[in-house]
């Protein structure tokens, strides 16, 4: 009893304001959103579904399925792209390049630009015109004699969303590089030396010693990039605006609030939250176990 309220009281008091604020503004509003998504608040839209029907009818909709498909393409390209470039740059820099600081900053800088600002520029770079009318990247290709590479970018029905992921890869690869670089630097030199003394080739050194040590960094990168990608909205609005061909759930949600269909917008928001939760929650469980060790 000695360690009663005097023990945990101040600590609790300390975090009470943030518990209150987070409870109200995060979990309270999530709850409110879910209750709207189950309601029949469709504004002036003559649809009278409510409850779970809101979810089933949305999931059966071609338009929503298309938006999920677009999101999947975008996320895969975004993830693979950033992890590939991030790891490659980190490995190159880690080998003790001259002017490392310069390259590190150069790769990191795009992250400082907002998606909206870079989106405006990429909208022009990814212009779909070809031949004499080409601008942006297509123009560059035709000028340097690679006109075979000209393509419609995000206007392409099949792989448009992969082109849409290019600006995102450009912006976030440097960040992933920083994560990997920190991971690489935390590997003690003794491990490498021990492996070399045991006669491991450079390839086997990376394959069996370095990469396993990098998996926490890779997981962090995967989750951070993954959840950013699933919530993407600003980049797409800046590049193509409200176009069906590049629609993702967040853009669809926005369209529904514009016409006043609150229930449908809230339904999309809830599904989006669940999709992000699938990525983030296992990560949180994993890290809390890792830290307890």
């Amino acid at each position: 009893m000695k360690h009663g309220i005097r023990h945990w009281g101040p600590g609790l008091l300390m975090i009470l304001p943030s518990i209150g604020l987070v409870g109200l503004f995060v979990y309270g509003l999530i709850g409110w959103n879910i209750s709207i998504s189950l309601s029949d608040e469709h504004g002036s839209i003559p649809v009278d579904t409510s409850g779970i029907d809101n979810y089933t009818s949305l999931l059966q909709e071609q338009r929503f399925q298309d938006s999920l498909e677009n999101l999947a393409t975008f996320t895969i390209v975004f993830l693979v792209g950033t992890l590939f470039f991030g790891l490659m740059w980190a490995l190159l820099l880690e080998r003790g390049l001259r002017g490392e600081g310069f390259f590190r900053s150069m790769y990191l800088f795009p992250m400082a630009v907002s998606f909206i600002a870079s989106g405006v520029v990429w909208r022009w770079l990814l212009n779909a015109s070809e031949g004499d009318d080409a601008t942006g990247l297509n123009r560059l290709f035709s000028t340097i004699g690679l006109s075979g590479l000209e393509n419609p970018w995000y206007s392409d029905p099949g792989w448009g969303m992969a082109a849409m992921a290019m600006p995102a890869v450009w912006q976030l690869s440097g960040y992933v590089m920083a994560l990997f670089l920190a991971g690489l630097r935390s590997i003690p030199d003794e491990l490498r030396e021990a492996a070399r003394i045991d006669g491991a080739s450079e390839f086997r050194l990376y394959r069996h010693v370095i990469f396993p040590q990098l998996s926490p960094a890779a997981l962090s990168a995967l989750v951070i990039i993954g959840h950013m990608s699933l919530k993407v909205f600003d980049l797409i609005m800046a590049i193509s605006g409200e176009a069906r061909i590049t629609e993702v759930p967040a853009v669809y949600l926005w369209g529904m609030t514009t016409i006043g269909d609150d229930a449908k917008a809230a339904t999309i928001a809830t599904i989006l939250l669940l999709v992000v939760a699938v990525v983030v929650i296992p990560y949180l469980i994993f890290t809390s176990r890792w830290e307890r060790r």
Partner: protein
Amino acid sequence: MRRIPLVAVAAAASIVLAGCGEDDGDGSQAGASNEVEVFTWWSEGGEKAGLDGLVQVFEQQYPDQTFVNGVVAGGAGSNAKNVLASRLEQGDPPSTFQGHAGGELRDYIAQEQIQDVGHLYEEEGWNDVFPEEVVSLLTEDDAIYSVPANIHRANVVWANPHVLKNAGVSQPPDSIDAWLEDLQALQDNGVKAPLAVATDWTQVHLFETVLIADLGPEAYNGLWTGETAWDSAEVTRAIEDYAALMEFTNGDRAGLDWPDSNQYMISGRAAYTVMGDWSYAGFEEAKLKPQKEYIWFPVPGTDGVFDFLADSFTLPVDAPNAEGTENWLRTVGSAEGQEAFNTKKGSIPVRTDADPQAYGEYQQEAMQDWQSDTIVPSLAHGAAAPLGWLEEITSAIGEFSSSKDTGKLQEALVAAAETYTGSG
């Protein structure tokens, strides 16, 4: 040492509480009694010039009122509509806001967010000078909910005369079929994408004019009341014509907006573009010469039909300074106000007693057509159908832009019509 966290917590808590308290005073920024906050999305070009003209007249007519510009730019009005929706929901409406006559206004009426302004019509004698077709789009259950500022025409083809001349196309086509032949001739002559279009909504704009051309005005109006079936053979034909037209359009359409497609036509990359007559204000502002650098004619097959939309101003429920709003509405409906606004915006005045001499060449022609043509409401601009229906059609048209599947497009259109009219 134990005490320090407690003190810090207390201090932090009081800061947080004080922060919360300050927000309560929000929403009073438009409280000053003589300010009229006019909410629009007219932030640039001919639209802004028109608004400025209107403000000048307002300040002359009502010098004791102060105009406050509540403009929200971007997204062809969709950004503004989001801001407006949340302000109306929070009970913090502007003094007046812009709304397209027709379906768009109905949404606000249904949610009881705007008020009857019928008494202004009586006081100012507007019932005699505003055409019935327009007023009926503003009326619900004998109450009139807004004051129209202008009339725009949507079914206009803008064309580049040099490009047409080079390909030997001399006459404006009189039907969609004849137009398709001209487009083919242009393409054979080296104009790769002779018909310029832009992002999804401009494609809906084109589609609506094809519907009017193939169905005629009466059956087109029936689409919105449920009298014309969306799965009929006429609609199938219109969709096929539309698909044929889309074969002549630019592939980079998804990344463009309407000023870009207009520019394609002006620069000669395309020969035609179909856009409303706000284009005219843009061409005028760019000091382009009508008849020399650009020409216009009704969309083939729609000669004698005026596909119209009208901007109007409303009196929101609980508007701050309602008297100021009513004065603004009086200016909007006055002859001077309409002239100052429309001569710059490219549109024509709603008042039938306006003097055509004050207007440009295109507008004089449009004013004549307005008197003689059959008038139909525009879909793409919120006059024909509620916003939700328009959103569904826009999505289907956007899907068609990449899939090119006419059957799927018709299915989606039929499904949308079922939701909104209860019949196919």
